[in-house]
């Protein structure tokens, strides 16, 4: 590989990593607080993408300005968080927090199955493609290769902003502190007056909205079609476990490793491309059993 191709591989890797991070970060946040691995996260991602692509397609066809693609992404994310995330937490998850882990996971698996069919009933089987946002920002040329500004610059910026924003939110704001407190000890938090139910709801809505935003951001670059959720969720699981449970910075680093690993694989060993996330996960967990940023649970005896 020459220096130029290495750089090209890094660009591709970073762009991909940004997208992976956007999806995984919501999953990690929810897991960190609620201790639930939300399989339906993949469906929320898909629905975020569907909403953006279908609404965008409809309103641009009516002659609205394509600049609206960007606020539309935020709207779709909010819709996913409020219309799907909130009822899911209030009506289903709230009833199973005291149940074993397996049951919690299976509840979200069931929701995933239901939402897969809901997507098909609402949006049908044809792929949706709506790339106004991509076209709007145009291309840049690097070493004679065109990149879209959207993927090369915007996505990484959004990912970094999300990472920093979440960090500041959790560390500096009162709401963030409440989330942190509930994460560590739900009952102790309640005993000092924190409404843990509300914190759970808020976290889940936020996490779901992040999934929706991930989908919305992915929609201009990809076809939105049935099944994209199932693919994304396994990858996000791998990121969450590799990162260390509930670790937002870990998720960022893991996403970056997976993104770079994947793009270098395409250059060097294309056949390994699919395996990269799992190989990284195995390698990391072999060396650090609690994940990159996880700390070993102190066994108190």
């Amino acid at each position, binding site marked *: 590989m020459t220096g130029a191709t290495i750089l090209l591989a890094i660009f591709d890797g970073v762009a991909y990593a940004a997208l992976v991070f956007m999806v995984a970060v919501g999953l990690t946040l929810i897991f960190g607080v609620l201790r639930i*691995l939300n*399989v339906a996260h993949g469906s929320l991602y898909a629905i975020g993408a569907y909403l953006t692509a279908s609404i965008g397609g409809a309103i641009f066809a009516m002659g609205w300005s394509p600049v609206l693609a960007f606020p539309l992404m935020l709207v779709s994310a909010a819709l996913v968080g409020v219309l799907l995330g909130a009822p899911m937490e209030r009506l*289903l998850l709230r*009833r*199973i927090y005291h*149940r*074993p*882990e*397996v*049951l919690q*996971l*299976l*509840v979200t*698996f*069931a*929701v*995933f*199955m*239901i939402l*897969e*069919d*809901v997507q*098909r*009933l609402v949006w049908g089987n044809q792929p949706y493609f709506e790339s106004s946002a991509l076209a709007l920002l145009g291309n840049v040329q690097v070493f004679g290769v065109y990149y879209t500004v959207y993927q090369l610059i915007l996505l990484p910026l959004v990912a970094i902003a999300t990472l920093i924003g979440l960090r500041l939110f959790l560390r500096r704001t009162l709401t963030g502190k409440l989330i942190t407190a509930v994460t560590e000890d739900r009952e102790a938090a309640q005993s000092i007056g924190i409404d843990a139910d509300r914190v759970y709801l808020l976290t889940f809505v936020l996490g779901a909205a992040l999934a929706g935003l991930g989908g919305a951001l992915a929609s201009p670059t990809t076809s939105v079609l049935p099944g994209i959720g*199932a693919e994304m969720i*396994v990858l996000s*699981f*791998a990121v*969450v*476990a590799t990162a260390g*449970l509930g670790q937002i910075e870990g998720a960022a680093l893991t996403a970056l490793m997976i993104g770079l690993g994947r793009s270098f694989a395409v250059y060097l060993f294309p*056949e390994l491309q*699919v*395996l990269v996330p*799992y*190989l990284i*996960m*195995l390698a990391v*967990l*072999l060396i650090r*059993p*609690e*994940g990159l940023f996880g700390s070993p649970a102190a*066994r108190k*005896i």
Partner: protein
Amino acid sequence: MSVRLILPALAIVALALVPPLAPFLQVLLTLAMAKGIAVMGVTLLLRAGQVSFGHALFFGIAAYGAAFLAASPLDDLLLLLLAGALGAGIAGVLVGLFVVRYRGIFFGMLNLAFSMIFWSILEKFYYVTGGADGLRLPRPSVAFIEMDRGPYEVLLYYASLLLAIALGWFVVRFLASPVGQLFQTVKTNETRLEYLGVSARRTLLKGYVLSAVLCGVGGVLMAAAQGIVTPSYAYWIRSGEMVFIAVLGGAGSVVGAFAGSIAYELVRSYAAAFAADAWQMVLGGFLLAIILFAPGGLVGIYAAFADRIGARRAKSASKKEAGT
């Protein structure tokens, strides 16, 4: 006979009568029992408090092993079963040595990772594995007797039933045995286990290998019934389905593994027949209803029912005594 045993006994009798009396259910139930045996492997791990989201790995390894062997002159059902179980067992040791160091979500995810790696290999190396189209597994001989489809399927049905009963019996005995009881303590207190001078990892490994072998047997039976093996045998959705069935039947219950898989196959196949494009929704709703309203699964529902009957019987019996 205790009330609780009546239904399982009746169920076995009813299952034995399916081929002559309800032949349309025969293949469906063969698949259900094949899956039930595999689900038993997942159930076993649940008893040690571990959830694997990758046991389709062993299901797939055994099924592919059988398919490769079937392409050789050693194309006999019994050999396929042996080879599949052995292959799954060896894979269980290798993967197990690695994953038994982890617990909870990490255990689940690592299993998932291994199964997804295997799945990717099946998809990637299609010159060897047939890729997404999989490998054909032509009808094997049974004890080196070539058979037609009809008798072969009847035989396979009874073989599955017998294996289900025999392996079910074995698993129940294993769980009651000292080594099985130690295995289950991994769920409740590993510290004490360590301070009994026992390695939690090695203990877990024993159960893990057994669970892999069970999945292997299920995988071979499934492959033999289907006549084809595809990468979907090892996909994560399949692993999820196994956990799904285990919980549906009653998490941790051996009988539940079979009750769950029969119920699952019936619901799924009728949902697929009558709501062809919404079968996932039907299954998802079914699962939600069970978890929310009957967390003990089918076995839990039955136990509650049997208890009520048993209590009523005891009451009427004591009344009678009082009367005389």
